[in-house]
């Protein structure tokens, strides 16, 4: 693939990328295919943040078992993100509250942000991609 060539061309430019995850897993493909973009972006040595709001917070819950619906369980990938130097994981407090979730319900360590904190973080990004 030409991805390796691209990395040489872009050497030195580091932009702030936020991946905003607003959709639940499995019902649609966006969470799974979105995660693939996140991993590639990290391989380009960019400043990557992942934000989880609305139903996107459901991507991170413990106890996911996809055997019965015969689709890939990609939730394990979130635990591997640290290996890709993706350590900025943010969740929206209001979205968590609206779904009866707390940090203890999630499979990875996250930073819980207020609406204002999340909004300001989003506003300071160079690129926001929402899945």
């Amino acid at each position, binding site marked *: 693939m030409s991805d390796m060539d691209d990395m040489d061309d*872009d050497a030195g430019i580091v932009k702030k990328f936020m991946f905003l995850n607003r959709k639940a897993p499995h019902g649609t493909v966006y969470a799974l295919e979105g995660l693939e*973009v996140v991993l590639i972006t990290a391989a380009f040595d960019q400043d990557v943040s992942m934000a989880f709001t609305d139903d996107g917070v459901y991507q991170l819950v413990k106890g996911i078992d996809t055997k019965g619906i015969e689709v890939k369980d990609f939730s394990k990938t979130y635990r591997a993100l640290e290996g890709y130097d993706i350590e900025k994981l943010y969740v929206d407090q209001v979205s968590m509250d609206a779904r009866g979730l707390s940090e203890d319900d999630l499979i990875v360590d996250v930073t819980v942000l207020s609406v204002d904190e999340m909004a300001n973080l989003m506003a300071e990004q160079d690129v926001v991609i929402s899945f």
Partner: protein
Amino acid sequence: MQFGILVNEGPYSHQASDSAYLFARSAIEKGYKVPRVFFYHDGVYNASRLATPPQDDRNVSARWSKLAADHGIDLVVCVAAAQRRGITDGVLGDNFRISGLGQLVEMGIQYDRLVTFGD
């Protein structure tokens, strides 16, 4: 100023590809550059030259091809999303090509703006 465009849905079922096309055309008319459009998720279906819509309807794939020919736009279809959905080199319309997700990331790095159209 350079704009990158990301199209996340296929033709006809959603307005996304139409909105993206009209946005791209207007941007070019106003003198901006649209060097690349990236097709992801079901957006890869926009690349199929096998689609034959009725004569009185727009041909979404063909008009992307023509816009690309007229203005030198790089129409890139994500390889992983395409393989999942049976879009291969053999069905690609003119000026579409299949490549990796790095081409999407590169738009974000190199261009001034990235605009997403989807469901």
